[in-house]
């Protein structure tokens, strides 16, 4: 039973996706039902596994591709890490599936949407359950493809189609490094299985020799792309062109978390140098995204940048050698960020697809449930105790403080910025005065969209007390020092564990909220641009990073393509091919001069030829 269960969890969504594509593309409700049913089955299966889980690590595998020294299994790995992720992906995913049924109710492409969603779930579960590198890479790519399809769901819109393309290409850039890293690992160690690699590395830590950092960083490239870390973060904000539930599922809870998950999964691969780089990249991403977020006006973009910033936290956590904290934050972040997106989706739905926060306002009264849930999630993301985000964020800050004071400073500063821009959002959308007609006449969303929010509110509020970090910690020997404690001790543990980090962090968060109130408590328009001037413009333009990229990456290839095409057209096809053509033609023209058409000329040639032949026959 337990042997077959993980396979069921993995393949039921695929089955749903296939049957929707092949059979039920014309039946809306049936398609939605199939998809929702599939993820619910997976969720129940995950729950069953979690219940019977004993803390060890189990693998089920069957050979997939085996040539020479290359053995790739289709394998499932169940340990505390993957079980946690299973619960997150299927749990959050199930709620979002249900929510989608309401959100997409009027869209004619709903069956296609649900097929994509199920396919995405399948790919994501594949990433989570993989027990070897190539399988991980395969599902990694599939996640990219399905997100491409979902971001570009409304492909008639040029922006959506472009965003999908950009996401896929940026991810591919990261995967380039990832694949090379995998090949390097395989050639050095001769195995692809995580367990075997870890055992080999433990037996012989110096196996990579001088390539150790490079191998780690190459693998990290994969996470760079998928988790949208600087400098490959540019795709995530654009990906908000997809339907909002997709943003919630992919770009908040699951897909972007895959990078963090992967880093934790192969944590043994990184050495000191690699970890330092990882930590700094995480820190820079967190800071950069938080800064950009404070001047965005699109509700989904603000959330996107906040996602980036939180992902930076998680990567930083891995970098400062505490993957448990990273995964912990991933788990809590999945619930509250999904909640934020669902709330934003509800707001957008109510506002008839208006996304500018300066055209909203006063929605607190019109949409009370959404408001309260959104507030819970906001408090959680800011890290206010006793909400879930507090615990996970504090554990990251604590780990950072242990390792690197500067990174701790960055982290704390980001915490303040987070509080600032999140409350800016809350004030502008829910509390401040209505700034448009639509905002005044907005209504609460239907139950199918409301209840998933409420259900997500529970973990956002309480996940800090469930001992998730200990559960995850089973996978990492280093973190086993933590002990489970009663819930009221739980809330105090950050203070006792790392008092400086906790108090400092809390203070800054409070400062951020206060500042947000001061600026936006009653604002009808954003006062900051006037005060900051050009800096604000720069931030609004996302620090011109996108432009820099377009120039750097796209145009470099564009120019190379131009050159290659030119060479192809003029040198190879033109000079060489046409040249030989002309050469042959010229020779033909010259020889044609002999063809006068006069019989006697030919007769003369005949005579000459006869002389030559006779000469050979008679004289030699």
């Amino acid at each position, binding site marked *: 039973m337990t042997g077959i269960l993980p396979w069921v969890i993995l393949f039921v969504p695929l089955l749903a996706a296939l049957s929707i594509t092949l059979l039920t593309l014309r039946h809306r409700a049936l398609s939605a039902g199939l998809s929702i049913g599939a993820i619910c089955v997976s969720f129940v299966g995950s729950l069953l596994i979690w219940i019977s889980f004993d803390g060890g690590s189990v693998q089920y595998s069957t050979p997939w591709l085996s040539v020479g020294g290359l053995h790739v299994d289709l394998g499932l790995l169940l340990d505390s890490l993957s079980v946690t992720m299973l619960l997150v992906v299927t749990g959050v995913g199930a709620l979002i599936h249900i929510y989608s049924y309401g959100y997409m109710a009027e869209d004619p492409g709903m069956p296609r949407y649900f097929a994509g969603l199920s396919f995405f779930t399948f790919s994501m579960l594949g990433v989570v359950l993989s027990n070897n590198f190539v399988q991980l890479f395969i599902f990694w790519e599939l996640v990219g493809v399905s997100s491409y399809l979902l971001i570009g769901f409304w492909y008639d819109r040029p922006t959506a189609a472009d965003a999908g393309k950009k996401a896929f290409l940026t991810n591919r850039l990261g995967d380039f490094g990832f694949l090379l890293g995998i090949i390097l690992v395989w050639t050095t160690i001769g195995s692809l299985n995580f367990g075997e690699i870890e055992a080999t590395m433990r037996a012989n830590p110096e196996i990579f020799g001088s390539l150790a950092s490079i191998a780690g960083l190459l693998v990290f490239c994969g996470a760079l792309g998928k988790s949208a870390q600087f400098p490959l973060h540019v795709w995530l904000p654009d990906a908000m062109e997809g339907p909002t539930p997709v943003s919630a599922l992919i770009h908040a809870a699951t897909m972007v978390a895959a990078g963090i998950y992967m880093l934790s999964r192969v944590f043994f691969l990184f050495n000191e140098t690699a970890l330092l780089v990882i930590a700094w990249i995480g820190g820079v991403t967190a800071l950069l995204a938080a800064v950009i977020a404070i001047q965005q006006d699109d509700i989904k973009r603000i959330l996107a940048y906040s996602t980036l910033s939180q992902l930076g936290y998680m990567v930083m956590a891995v970098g400062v050698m505490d993957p448990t904290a990273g995964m912990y934050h991933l788990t809590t972040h999945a619930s509250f960020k999904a909640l934020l997106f669902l709330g934003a989706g509800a707001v957008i739905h109510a506002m008839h697809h208006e996304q500018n926060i300066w055209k909203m306002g006063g929605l607190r009264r019109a949409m009370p449930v959404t408001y309260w849930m959104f507030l819970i999630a906001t408090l959680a993301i800011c890290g206010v105790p006793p909400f879930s985000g507090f615990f996970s964020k504090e554990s990251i800050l604590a780990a950072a403080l242990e390792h690197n004071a500067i990174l701790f400073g960055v982290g704390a500063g980001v915490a303040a910025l987070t509080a600032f821009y999140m409350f800016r959002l809350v004030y502008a959308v829910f509390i401040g005065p209505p700034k448009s007609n639509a905002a005044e006449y907005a209504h609460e969303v239907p139950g199918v969209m409301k209840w998933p929010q409420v259900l997500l509110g529970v973990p956002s509020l309480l996940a800090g007390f469930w001992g998730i970090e200990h559960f995850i910690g089973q996978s990492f020997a280093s973190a086993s020092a933590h002990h489970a404690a009663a819930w009221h001790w739980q809330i105090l543990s950050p203070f006792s564990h790392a008092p400086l980090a906790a108090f400092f962090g809390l203070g800054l968060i409070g400062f951020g909220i206060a500042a947000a109130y001061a600026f936006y408590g009653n604002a009808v328009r954003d006062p900051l641009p006037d005060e900051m001037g050009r800096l604000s413009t720069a931030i609004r333009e996302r620090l011109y990073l996108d432009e820099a990229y377009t120039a750097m990456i796209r145009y470099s290839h564009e120019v190379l393509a131009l050159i290659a095409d030119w060479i192809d057209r003029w040198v190879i096809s033109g000079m060489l091919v046409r040249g030989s053509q002309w050469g042959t033609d010229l020779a033909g023209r010259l020889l044609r001069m002999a063809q006068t058409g006069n019989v006697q000329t030919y007769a*003369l040639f005949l005579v*000459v030829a*006869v002389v030559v032949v006779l000469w050979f026959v008679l*004289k030699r």
Partner: protein
Amino acid sequence: MDIFFYLFAALTLICGLLVVANPFSRNPVTSAMFLVLTILSMAGLFVLLNAFFLAAVQVIVYAGAVIVLYLFVIMLLDLGADERRRLNKAMVGLSFLGVGLLAFVLVSSIGQSEAVGALSSPRLQGTTEKLGKALFSDYVLPFEVVSVVLLVAMVGIILLSKRDLK
């Protein structure tokens, strides 16, 4: 006997030359007449070689039939004297060079050949009886084939001579 050889040989060559290049007349009829002379003197050479039958055939077929055909056609078409046209000097030079080389190769190789010396005693008599026997025994198949060739030529000529050729 030698005197006859020299006589006929000289006649053959001179008349042959006059067929090709006659300084006094450029009329094709004249050329045809000199061709008759050439052929007749050739027949004389054949007699000297004891090929009596062939000599007779030469006179009957060539001098009789072929040349008459030539004259007939020339007169039918009423060809006048050849116009004098400007010669292409390069062509003339090349032609002389080519033909000169040809003659040189042929004549010089005749002298060098050892086989020629070994075959210097003439014995064969080309009588009608001998040729007739060979023709109807060993050569009967080629003989028949040649008759087909003549038939084909005849059909071809009829076809060519029809005015409205479609």
